[in-house]
């Protein structure tokens, strides 16, 4: 539990005058489920973009298993086993669910492990069954409901057999009936010893799931600890409810 797998060292990302992430040092431990909490605009997604290689940080470094990955392109980062999902579902809408899941199989990471088409198909079917979308395999993703699309995107990330899974608001837009099965799949994936980082701005959604929470506001790390510690932290409460709010909440 104490082995650090993914780490940022004083990372900043600026867009012109806007500082989206500021002097941010984060350590993700192997095998944990880490939650990143923060109000809208706190810089959570920007942090994900830096971790997954979509943005190069303005300052600072990113390490994965003691290897610096700051300047790697996003496909190289994914090839190392750090795979992400998106806040707004991004699927290949002209392709079927099966084809969506086939794409990561063609990456160097998976195609080397599963060279034959039959083994790839077995892998895809296994992941699709695990997530519960096996009956949709031949549907075009554009025709699916939002809930199923979320699941397909999640399955596509799982097909890459990630070591670290970065989930950007996996529960947004899901109804309560859809939240439960997805949380179960995430837990099962975690039970295999994998590391998961989840972004949420609603604490309740992932309270049951995460083991540790890092709270962000305006690009900065404002608190970290267990879910209970975070939910009572005066800085976090202020970030959500405004200055002085912690007095009322704690009383």
């Amino acid at each position, binding site marked *: 539990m104490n082995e650090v797998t993914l780490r940022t060292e004083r990372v900043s990302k600026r867009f012109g005058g806007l500082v989206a992430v500021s002097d941010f040092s984060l350590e993700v431990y192997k095998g944990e489920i880490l939650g990143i909490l923060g109000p809208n605009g706190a810089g959570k997604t920007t942090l994900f973009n830096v971790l997954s290689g979509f943005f190069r940080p303005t300052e600072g470094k990113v390490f994965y298993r003691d290897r610096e990955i700051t300047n790697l392109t996003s*496909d190289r980062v994914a090839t190392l086993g750090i795979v*992400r999902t998106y806040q707004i579902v*991004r699927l*290949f809408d002209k392709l079927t669910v*099966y084809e969506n899941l086939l*794409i990561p199989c063609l990456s160097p990471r998976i195609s080397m492990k599963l060279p034959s088409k039959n083994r790839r*198909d077995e892998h895809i079917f296994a992941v699709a069954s695990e997530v519960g979308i096996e009956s949709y395999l*031949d549907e075009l993703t554009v025709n699916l409901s939002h809930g199923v699309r979320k699941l397909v995107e999640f399955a596509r990330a799982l097909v890459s057999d990630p070591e670290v899974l970065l989930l950007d608001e996996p529960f947004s837009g899901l109804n309560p009936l859809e939240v439960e099965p997805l949380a179960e799949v995430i837990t099962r994936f975690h039970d295999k010893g994998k590391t998961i980082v989840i972004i949420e701005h609603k604490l309740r959604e992932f309270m049951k799931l995460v083991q540790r929470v890092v709270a962000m506001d305006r690009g900065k790390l404002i608190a970290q600890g267990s879910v209970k510690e975070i939910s009572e932290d005066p800085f976090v409460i202020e970030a959500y409810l405004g200055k002085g709010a912690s007095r009322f909440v704690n009383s």
Partner: protein
Amino acid sequence: MKMKITASFIIGLTALLFLLPVLRDDLYLLTILSIALSYAVLAASWDFFSGFTGRENFGVSAFMAVGGYLVGLVTATANIPPLPAIILAFLAAGFVGFLIGIPTLRLHGPYFALATLALVVIAQNLVLAFARVTGGEDGLYGLPYLSESIEGSYYYVLVFSVISIAILYFLGRSNMGLILKAIQSDESATRSSGINVTKYKLLSISISAAFAGATGALLAHFYGYIGRDVIFHANLMVIIMATVGGVGYVIPAALGGLAISLITEFIRAFGDFKNLSYTVVLIVMVLFVPGGLFSFMFSNRHSKGRRESRERSYSKN
């Protein structure tokens, strides 16, 4: 079932094209068909890059020019027969496509289209600037013909077209084609699936440019002449042909190239009304069959073929 009908139609059409010189002794028809077949390859090669990745390439002529003028240059200095010249043109244009792709493929939408359109303008000016080697406005005459007879040239073009379109079609149906379509849908998501998007885009534009260049060389040998009219007239035509035929499956685009070339020849009879009737035909097609005239033969191509083999592989377990 649909695929069987489509396959029989394609095979039947190819067989008919091969038998045509035996069935009808019409040299005029063979000449038109040779040109139409060349355009079919151009439309197919355009589709393989633009139709698959969704980046409209307005620079087909620039790649054709590389092939066509290369033939003009090498046959002026050395006595090289058509086949090696065409292969050389294929490689050279592919390399130019690769070089052009490196800076331009970062651009999206209209910016990529404009960059490639600028390429054609540059190519046109280069042809004029180096008039001593390219023949400038007059072009270069006296290049070796593909064959001594029109029938021979026709068969040459036909074999070239069938092979080229088949290669592009099978590449399009391969995993590479699927990755290109994923890139078109969402480039970032393709990257986060661990795919080296840049590599595939460069590969695709190089292959597309190589076939355009080879066709430019083929046309130069077919006419025994290379000039601005042969090359630059084709630029927009090719895009229209591929779009009207239908993009994303190679063969519909090729059929579009064949059909529009023949229609263009047919409406020559309308004289002054030629352009008007041509435009009317295009507008009607775009309005009523926006997906392309021939795409219906191929819809869901990728998944259907795979579904059957997948079910076979599950039933084994």
